[in-house]
């Protein structure tokens, strides 16, 4: 009994530790954030070598409700922790939005093992559709977001179709080409603002309450970002849950099989066309919603938000965080968003340092912070069977 309470509190402590680490990264200077990340990498690497990480995973997995509760509480309290600092809240919101896109992109990179270089096009499709409909047609932003989602899925089919025929570098090039074509087409289309972008995008409203009004909570005046923070993180929680369920279902397994060997996958009865298109369409749906929210949040979108370099950032998030690992992808997105923002203080050196940090992390952990893991279906099974190497080692293909 004592042991149980001990483990319970230990699980809570480790989640709390992660939340605190993220909070420290968010609120302090770049150097401190980098030290925290370096520490985390050291702890992860040592833990993996000594097989402790596995136990931590199990510890956290065993007490899901507690840990989710802690994380939820953390997000809920974040505005108070940062004392209503709207910039830090803005970073947190962007981290949430980017996490959603990265989760969607992960279906392609982690799931079917195809690097899609056009996630920013999906993201932009959602943003532009929703913004266009709500600004020019006066549609409600909620409906606009839905349409953004649908249009992003249409684009997902367009980009996903080549993936059925091309693989590896060829697919990379196709998606790069489509991404560039997407940005060029936006620039050349004056009816959606062309290079001017779309200004004055309305915000979401519930009843008469606009999301862009500051709120007073518990006697404290909080900036309007709080509304979006909660909206984004509720969505992120739902999307992460869905991604996790997909990962643990027959669909996620089929994606992995296609990644490993498409012919073998087909011979197991997996419909390559539908299953791969699904990965692209679901990913596009995630990105589309995220894009639409972004537009309604910032009230302005321009083509520069959705270009090739933005796509690269999304890809980095997935690969640095850990492909096909839902917490990993979210962690990658959150950390990279923060690092990117911290680097703003070094304006001229920002990109340089971004590149260097990227290379270093890639060399230290080529499989990402939280690497892909063996699926565990039931905790009970797990403790019955020994598992020496739950972390997938060695190369693919």
């Amino acid at each position, binding site marked *: 009994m004592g042991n149980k309470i001990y483990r319970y509190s230990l699980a809570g402590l480790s989640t709390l530790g992660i939340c605190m680490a993220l909070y420290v990264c968010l609120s302090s200077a770049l150097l401190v954030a980098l030290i925290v990340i370096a520490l985390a990498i050291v702890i992860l690497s040592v833990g993996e070598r000594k097989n402790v990480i596995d136990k931590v995973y199990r510890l956290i997995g065993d007490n899901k409700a507690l840990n989710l509760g802690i994380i939820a509480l953390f997000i809920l309290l974040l505005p108070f922790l940062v004392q209503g600092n709207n910039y830090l809240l803005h970073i947190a919101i962007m981290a949430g939005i980017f996490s959603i896109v990265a989760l969607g992109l992960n279906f392609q990179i982690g799931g079917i093992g195809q690097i899609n270089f056009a996630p920013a096009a999906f993201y932009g499709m959602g943003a532009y559709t929703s913004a266009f409909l709500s600004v020019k047609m006066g549609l409600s932003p909620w409906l606009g977001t839905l349409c953004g989602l649908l249009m992003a899925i249409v684009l997902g089919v367009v980009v996903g179709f080549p993936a059925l025929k091309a693989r590896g570098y060829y697919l990379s090039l196709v998606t790069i*080409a489509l991404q*560039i074509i997407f940005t060029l087409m936006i620039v050349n289309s004056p009816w959606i603002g062309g290079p001017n972008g779309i200004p004055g995008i309305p915000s979401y409203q519930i009843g008469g309450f606009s999301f862009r009004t500051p709120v007073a909570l518990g006697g404290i005046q909080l900036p309007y970002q709080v509304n979006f923070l909660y909206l984004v993180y509720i969505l992120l929680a739902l999307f992460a849950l869905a991604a996790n369920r997909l990962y643990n279902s027959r669909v996620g397994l089929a994606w992995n099989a296609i990644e490993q060997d498409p012919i073998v996958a087909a011979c197991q009865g997996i419909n390559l066309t539908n299953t791969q298109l699904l990965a692209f369409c679901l990913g596009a749906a995630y990105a589309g919603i995220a894009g639409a929210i972004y537009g309604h949040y910032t009230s302005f979108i321009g083509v520069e938000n959705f270009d090739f370099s933005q796509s690269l950032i999304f890809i980095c998030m997935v690969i640095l965080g850990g492909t096909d690992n839902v917490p990993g992808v979210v962690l990658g997105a959150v950390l990279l968003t923060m690092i990117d923002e911290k680097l703003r203080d070094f304006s001229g050196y920002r*990109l*340089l340092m971004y*590149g260097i940090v990227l*290379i270093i992390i890639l060399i230290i952990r080529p499989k990402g912070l939280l690497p892909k893991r063996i699926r565990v279906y039931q905790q009970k099974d797990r403790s019955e069977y020994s598992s020496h190497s739950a972390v997938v080692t060695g190369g693919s293909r």
Partner: protein
Amino acid sequence: MELIISQILNAVMLACTYTLVGIGFSLFFGAMDIVVFCLGDVAIAGAFAIMALSTVMGVYASLSGILPAPISGIIVVFIGACFTAGLVTLMYRAVIVPFEGKNINASLLSTIAAGIVIRELIGLFYPEGRNPHAFPQLLPAGLIGDNVLLSWRNIIIIAITFIMVMLLYWFVNRTKTGLSIQAISQNKEAAIMVGINWHRIIVITFLIGGFLLGIGGFLTASYFNSLRFDMGAMYGLKGFCVAVVGGLGSIYGAIVGGLLIAFVEVFVTAFIPGGTAYSSVAAFLIVVLFILFKPEGILGEKTVEKV
């Protein structure tokens, strides 16, 4: 008629600027089965090195004091190209070796990141690095006769491209090292089995490829008379397109691919009303179509997937 001829000439010149970087992609892909995404940036770094030698560092000026101008020009370009070769090899050690055989995604990303680093280093540390620069005129600029279409510089650019391709062809097909490169690109395991020193050959491939890239960057900068630190991104991307359209792994393919892409761009610009804005769209569409319907490219070998 004159318009068509001048546009054809424009396209040929543009193709020349694409070809060498396309060959770089093909060479490295053939040898290692990897796509090094930062080749465009490397080539532009080479051009910057040549520019530094001839302006800031004054090597060209001091050389031409003792030697005739063309020879000192050649020396400067040669040093610059060697620098590029060194840069590529360094990059191979730093961002490709750590991921060898491990993770295709990680190496893809690391080369992209390396491109960013190269670009930013130039921007930060070259004097006025973020501004456009006029590229020093190492090639004679005069016109041939009264014909405004043909200048000496253009002829020389075409000639250098041609010579480089021929030299590469000779090297790959007539020397032992070159044949080893071919052997590795066809079957790595077998090549190692018959005693080819894989690592040595790879380094040599990178040196040669880097040299070509340096020349390619030089020709491009000379053709446009100008240089900017971030030119490499698009340049590299076009080079990759060229290599794929021509057939990834094929040297001649890069020439054919370069011509095709250049002709599409130039002719969409010149002969389709309102086409200017869409010339890049057209070029990339061509690439997409090729990958979908003829992924082996124009001159590449069709590989049948083994079951």
